[in-house]
């Protein structure tokens, strides 16, 4: 007997997207168009659900291409990939929300999918009524909900408002109640799409605990998230997807590192175009230039990370602070702000250089996010919608402690160590400040 919980064979899913239509410029052309429009629309709407497997037309998008993998029972597996890599489509096909265009999936056991919490919640219904309705939508029987009802309410912490319509709830309470219902499902296979990022910090902790419980009980879990840290925490194996295909399948740490490394480009300067700026202002960070001897963004541990920003303003600015966020595995671990730059003249190119302390970051893959704001009122001037990845390699630069390169973590913090053993009193300090 097989112990495979999920078998996916050559799975493909195609979508039709509407292409831009031709417009006629002349009056007669426009009238003809108007007459033909219904026919044209009919064909377009019909085509939404018609996909020709062998035809490679322009308006067909393959969200999944020939995906195959197997998941053993009890395995907790993460699906990694950029936006649009096909992760969500994969979960949708696996949870039967949409049908595959080709291929086959065999699921052994009862499956529940959580692509969203609180699906089907109705504002006018009370908390109690919504628990039953939502539970049933998630595939629970009435008896099951009856049994777990008290537990669900306890977990959510909304017992006082049980008979109040949920439209009177705060959004936090709604989410808590919704997650509580979902957390009490007992499927053999569970699929989750980033629903962990809900509620306040305390509730999130509770949720993570519950998730680990679920994973620990021999259930098979498929998990999609952008948070590599929580993924590493929960999953043992990962599948890396890109443009609808599985490109790597293996141990979580290896796959996460490869995924992050793929983001490191073999160029050291980044130029930002107009749609990468979040705000419409007269202030523009136009480029970022890493100061690195080689053509790859890999720094040796102990080497200083340094980069230059080019700023162009359409008017004069006083007191601007530039901010750099350091992101590790999807988590912003620190933000470094510049001192206020007293004057930036209009229509001239200003250059700002930033250098991180030499031993700040431990080996790993990080990314930078960039922004700028006015010092006096914190008004946002620029934010760049692009993460710039770089790596601190496990090769130690000359003159630094090679033991550190194996250290686990993000930052190297300075500390003072003292040997207090009699006759052996010694003091080691990393810095003179201590």
């Amino acid at each position, binding site marked *: 007997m097989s112990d495979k919980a999920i078998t996916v064979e050559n799975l493909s899913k195609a979508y039709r997207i509407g292409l831009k239509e031709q417009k006629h410029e002349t009056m007669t052309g426009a009238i003809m168009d108007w007459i033909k429009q219904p026919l044209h629309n009919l064909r377009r709407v019909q085509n939404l659900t018609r996909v020709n497997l062998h035809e490679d037309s322009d308006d067909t998008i393959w969200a999944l291409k020939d995906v195959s993998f197997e998941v053993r029972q009890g395995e907790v597996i993460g699906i990694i990939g950029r936006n649009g890599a096909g992760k969500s489509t994969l979960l949708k096909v696996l949870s039967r929300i949409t049908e595959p265009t080709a291929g086959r999936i065999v699921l052994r056991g009862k499956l529940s999918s959580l692509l969203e919490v609180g699906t*089907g919640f109705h504002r006018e219904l009370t908390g109690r009524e919504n628990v039953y309705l939502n539970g049933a939508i998630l595939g629970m029987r009435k008896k099951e909900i009856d049994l777990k009802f008290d537990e669900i309410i306890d977990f959510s912490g909304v017992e006082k408002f049980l008979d109040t319509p949920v439209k009177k709830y705060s959004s936090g309470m709604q989410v808590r109640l919704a997650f509580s219902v979902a957390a009490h499902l007992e499927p053999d296979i569970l699929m989750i799409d980033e629903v962990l990022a809900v509620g306040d910090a305390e509730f999130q902790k509770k949720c993570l605990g519950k998730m680990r419980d679920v994973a620990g009980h021999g259930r098979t879990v498929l998990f999609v998230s952008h948070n590599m840290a929580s993924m590493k925490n929960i999953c043992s194996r990962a599948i890396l997807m890109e443009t609808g295909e599985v490109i790597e399948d293996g141990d979580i740490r290896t796959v996460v590192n490869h995924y992050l490394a793929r983001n490191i480009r073999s160029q050291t300067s980044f130029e930002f175009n107009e749609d990468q700026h979040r705000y419409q202002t007269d202030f523009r960070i136009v480029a970022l230039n890493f100061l690195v001897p080689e053509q790859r963004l890999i720094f040796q541990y102990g080497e200083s990370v340094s980069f230059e920003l080019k700023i162009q303003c359409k008017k004069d600015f006083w007191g601007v602070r530039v901010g750099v966020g350091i992101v590790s595995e999807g988590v912003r671990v620190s933000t470094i702000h510049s001192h206020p730059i007293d004057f930036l003249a209009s229509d001239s190119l200003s250059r700002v250089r930033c250098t991180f302390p030499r031993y700040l970051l431990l080996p790993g893959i990080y990314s930078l996010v960039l922004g700028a704001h006015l010092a006096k009122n914190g008004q946002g001037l620029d934010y760049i919608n692009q993460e710039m990845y770089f790596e601190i390699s496990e090769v130690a630069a000359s003159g630094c402690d090679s033991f550190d390169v194996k250290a686990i973590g993000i930052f190297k913090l300075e500390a003072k160590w003292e040997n207090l053993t009699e006759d052996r009193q010694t003091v080691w300090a990393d810095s003179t400040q201590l």
Partner: protein
Amino acid sequence: MKKTDPLQPLTVIEPRKDWQAFNWRELKDYRDLLYFWVLREIKILYRQTVLGFTWALIRPVASMIVFSVVFGKLARVPSDGIPYPIFAYAALMPWTYFSQSLIKSTDSLVQQASVISKIYFPRLIIPMAPVLAGLLDFVLSFLVFFILMFVYHIQPTWNILYIPLLVVIMVLTASGLGMWTSALGIQYRDVRQAMMFIVQLLMYASPIVWPISIIPFKYRTIYAIYPMAGVIEGFRAALIGKHPMPWYSISIGSISAICLFITGAIIFNRMEKNFADVA
């Protein structure tokens, strides 16, 4: 670690090719959801209203009053010798149920688009729920009928026992059409636009304000293909008892109701796989 249970359900997901009407096993698994969904339909309908379930009575009663004045008094439409208000009300009970269920059922999938694209359950529950929930309003509308019976001194006859059969035909018709229109409506949004006035036209095509007796005999068979014709005329015969049951119309109507229901289920099943993609 959990052992593989030979009884664990095995699910195979692949492109659908069959022409199945119902997946019975799955519907059985989700019967509690159908129950809760019907309950939801009933609860949200009159929540935060002042009159509550009285609305179930206002709709047919108001129509009855207007029809009695316009068609009964002013236009003098024949009513087979039955007082016009009760003549109209007996027909308005099944008609109100049918038209309301059909409109809600048509809209149901589009309204639940966000649910459809987030989770799987048998989609059939969505258009079926308003059809079943409407039965409560329908039952309540009998209250007014009993009052009218008292006012017009109408003695109930044994024909009243045929009512459940007529209800079954009526539900089959509403749900059969509902499956057609909701499945087509989520992909072709024109259906929703069209349904509003189609239902309006169907009302005048049904023997509500006029008796079936004004239709020439040679057209009766064709007319009876429209299931609500037999149902409405059947309601009058069963409730008022002045005429024999129109068995000929009812039997033809029930055959077409069953056809509607089965074809509706098949079409729904065929189109179901695409709902999430077009929602």
